[in-house]
């Protein structure tokens, strides 16, 4: 289970400006280096925050993806994808 790496990638958007810049400009290179499953990697690159949430990523941290507008996640896009998960129970890894 490597949802830890998804959470960490989001967390670093706030605390590492080089990482933030890289995710905003060449996310494929950053994501290629992360220890993710294929499913997670595809979901990250697609900005599929609903999927990542269901796989156990933390919503508060996923919110940084739209705060810094990476992976095409403007607020309306993020909002719609996340709200589609209402009522569903995600995997909990922690």
């Amino acid at each position, binding site marked *: 289970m490597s949802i*830890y790496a998804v*959470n960490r990638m989001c*967390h670093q958007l*706030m*605390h590492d400006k080089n990482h933030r810049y890289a995710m905003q400009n060449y996310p494929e290179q950053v994501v290629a280096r992360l220890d993710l499953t294929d499913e997670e990697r595809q979901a990250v690159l697609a900005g599929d925050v609903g999927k990542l*949430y269901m796989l156990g990523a933390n*919503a*508060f*941290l*996923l*919110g940084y993806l*739209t*705060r810094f507008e990476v992976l095409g996640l403007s*607020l*309306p896009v*993020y*909002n719609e994808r*996340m*709200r*589609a*998960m*209402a*009522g*569903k129970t995600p995997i*909990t890894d*922690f």
Partner: protein
Amino acid sequence: MARIVGGLGVPHTPYFPRFAAAEGPDGEINRFFGKVRNELEKHNPDVILIIDTDHFNTFYFDNYPTFGIGCDDTFYGPVDDVALMPPRHIVSHKAMGLHIHRQLIGHEFDTALVTNYKVGHSVGVPFYFLTPDLNIPIIPIFLNGHLPPMPLAPRCYAFGKALREAIISWPDDIRVEVVGTGSFSLDVAGPQMFPGENYGVPDLPWAKHVIERMLAGDIEALLSEATEERMLAAGNVGGELLNWIAMIGAVANDKADWIDLQEIRGHAYGVWAAGGRQ
């Protein structure tokens, strides 16, 4: 001997400094915080303890304590990009933090020692409004109201009572305010967001119910109702209610003087007079 002179409850939304500046001095946010600040100034504390939930700025999944005590001369923050509040070194009270930590362990609350640390908006933003000069030392008391499993509500109330004993056993004759911070119904970036927003208030009736319990001083009922499942149903940071419950335990007065509700955000602003023996 230190004396507890009152308790406060406030929110800590990271966007509030910017929103408040846009609204102006007579805007809603400044009015709500200003009313609490007036009471704080009447209480005239020498030291302020804030019971808060860290949102991945002091701690991370790598190590996320259930209870922790900030023990240093200063701490640095807010480090999470709070507009109009750049990070800075904020004055704390190391000797008193260490005393509280030691006393709590002596009273069977095995707190984590937190030193050489940073904080996020949940510590910084309340003081942007309450003590903008940051001239009164602040001791952060960290309580996990975010990541399950969270401590049980009765345990948090008991923690507050033990915190009270730790405070009043401090030998110096000083005045201490206790602040609890957080929301009763708030979903941040999760599935219960309002359409088009980055937050939602999934259960305003629950927030109102919590406020009614606090105004009535009916803490026992609140402690039995505030289960983890119930709080999280009200939003992914609904567990921040635990910070207020711990504050109420510390103040030794279950009944709030008054609480204002900011409906659109599910936020509350409240004041408690000091109770109990001093």
